[in-house]
């Protein structure tokens, strides 16, 4: 798998996708990360609060039942920079990851999973009562 690298500060940092992270529009960021290819719905579970009291730290868990999933990418649609992270999976990992993200305002949280059977996405709205400095 291409994402599995041996040397740290070499490959992984060099491959940091600057254009995607710098993008200020969700549609553009999503298109960059998904490489403009077809994205279907399903096979992803987003576990996030429906209401977040503190937008500076919203706990999320993203899981997928897709076999041989290669990566999980996370977006917050209305953040100033919507692309949050990509986690690169491999056969040694369970296909689930927990993180805490910043949300400036009420927004959809979007997860994109790449797998040999294609790309899939899911979204969930999180209502933010006190925004975080995203």
């Amino acid at each position: 798998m291409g994402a599995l690298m041996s040397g740290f500060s070499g490959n992984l940092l060099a491959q940091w996708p600057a254009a995607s992270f710098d993008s200020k529009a969700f549609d553009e960021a999503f298109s960059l990360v998904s490489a403009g290819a077809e994205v279907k719905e399903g096979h992803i579970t987003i576990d996030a609060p429906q209401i977040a009291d503190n937008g500076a730290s919203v706990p999320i868990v993203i899981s997928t039942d897709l076999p041989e999933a290669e990566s999980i990418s996370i977006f917050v649609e209305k953040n100033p920079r919507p692309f949050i992270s990509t986690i690169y999976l491999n056969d040694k990992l369970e296909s689930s990851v927990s993180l805490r993200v910043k949300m400036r305002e009420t927004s959809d949280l979007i997860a994109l999973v790449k797998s040999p059977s294609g790309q899939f996405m899911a979204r969930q709205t999180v209502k933010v009562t006190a925004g975080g400095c995203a």
Partner: protein
Amino acid sequence: MSKKVKIRATLKDGITTVKAIISHPMETGSRKNKETGEIIPAHFIQAVEVTLNEEVVMDTHWGTGISKNPYLSFQIKGGAAGDSVVLTWTDNLGETGSGEAIVKAK
């Protein structure tokens, strides 16, 4: 500034759960210092890599949308009590940090 990584790895039912908290400001570069009005420069972790007994098990890229003092948790298939799990991060200013956990059976 403290650059600690708190990391724990617990083995249960053949799965090793890793939980980590990294001390890091995760500055977006768009916040202002309230007293001086100056913009606080971006300072955020870009890459995190985790190894199990020196073999890479997870890589991730982060942007400024990850919360301050980032939390990360995931599960590794297998693992054994006494195995070494090491998390290493690098930020946009070239700073790095790491932390190690020895897998404990639950």
